């Protein structure tokens, strides 16, 4: 073959098989260098960000340290507020459970008929508190609770007396249903006798030696009073 110009073939045989116009022996190191440079730049950017965040954090820490004493005072006040509120809650429970009966006794004197003699008036003491944890049985190892789980305490009012016939008792019971007593005495009718208020515990012939003969009738009536509710 005759050619007018001399062509020098500088391509190696293996390179002639590559489809890329840029030599692979040039491309590979450049790509590797670019990768390496990319990693360096990435690292640099990250380090810069880290420094910035750390500087900001240090500034925040300084700010927090400067306000710590003042903030501590406020936290103490907040804790005191919680404690005071809680104490107040318990004192309010007591106040809500307070009951007064002076008015009841004063009014009672006005409604007792003349032919009826009262022998005893009684508001019994409440039963002992149950301070056992729920489900626990009493024992030396059982630690009592700091407060009862129940918040309601039942109160009753017993009237014992004697009379010549039942009508004065009926008159007194009718009077005790009046508005003057509704704050203290509960009137519950139309229920089983043990749940009723008033409940006539006994009404019988008076046989006591102090009685004036067998003509007198003794009675024992129990009223349920408004419960004491130790609640907020």
């Amino acid at each position, binding site marked *: 073959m005759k050619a007018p110009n001399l062509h020098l073939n500088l391509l*190696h045989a293996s390179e002639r098989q590559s489809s890329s116009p840029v030599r692979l022996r040039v491309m590979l190191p450049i790509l590797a260098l670019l990768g390496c440079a990319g990693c360096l730049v990435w690292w640099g950017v990250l380090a810069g960000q880290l420094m910035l965040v750390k500087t900001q954090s240090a500034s*925040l820490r300084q700010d927090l340290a400067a306000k710590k004493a003042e903030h501590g005072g406020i936290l103490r006040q907040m804790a005191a507020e919680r404690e005071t509120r809680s104490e107040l*809650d318990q004192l309010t429970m007591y106040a809500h459970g307070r009951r007064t009966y*002076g008015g009841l006794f004063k009014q009672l004197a006005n409604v007792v008929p003349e032919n009826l003699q009262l022998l005893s008036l009684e508001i019994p003491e409440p039963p002992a508190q149950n301070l056992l944890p729920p489900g626990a049985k009493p024992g030396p190892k059982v630690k009592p609770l700091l407060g009862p789980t129940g918040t309601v305490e039942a109160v009753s009012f017993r009237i014992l007396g004697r009379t010549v016939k039942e009508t004065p008792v009926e008159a007194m019971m009718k009077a005790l249903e009046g508005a003057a007593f509704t704050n203290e005495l509960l009137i519950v009718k139309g229920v089983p006798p043990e749940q009723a208020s008033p409940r006539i515990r006994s009404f019988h012939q008076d046989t006591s030696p102090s009685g004036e003969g067998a003509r007198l009738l003794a009675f024992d009536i129990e009223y349920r009073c408004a419960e004491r509710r130790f609640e907020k």
Partner: protein
Amino acid sequence: MKTETFQDPSALMKRALFRSLLIGAVAVVLYMFCVEPCQTSLRKARTEHESLKDQQAGMVRDLKGAEMVKSRLDALQAERQAYLNGLLEPLLESYAMRAKSLLDPLAADVGLTIGDYSELPPRRLPLPVPQAPQLYARKPIRLTCTGTYATIVSFLLRVEEKMPLVSLEAFSLKTQKDPDNQSATIVLEWPIKGENTAAVAKGGVKK
């Protein structure tokens, strides 16, 4: 790129491959020992920074509300003080003595004779939620008195009027033959300071 390229590489290609591998290895080392740890540190620093920012925001909020907290606390303390003024404090370590000092003048005013004062065991109050370190309890004091029915009732009315925290817990009146000498047993109840759980806890720690 064909596989034949790497089957019989020229010397130049071999050198280029070696350099590329070397630089690649440096890049991997850079990533593993510089970029990755730096990323982890940055993540941690950002988390910490966010937490500090939250702390600061909370602190600023608390500081802004300081006046309100103070006024609320003052109001609550004033409200509690009204109750504390009505608590029964022991006199010479005796609640009955204190009750006597408070009730005798009222009884004298109405002409009632109180013969005996005795302390009954305290009764606990339900616990508030959250539980306060200082708890309160109910202290019953039993008094035995003699007088007419009217004086007993007057005494009760005066106690209820003058002592707004005193409650009648129990009452028993058995009529006597002499109407001027009725005998009554009255159990009056005051609030008292109960257990201080904070002090108890401190005592426990000391042990």
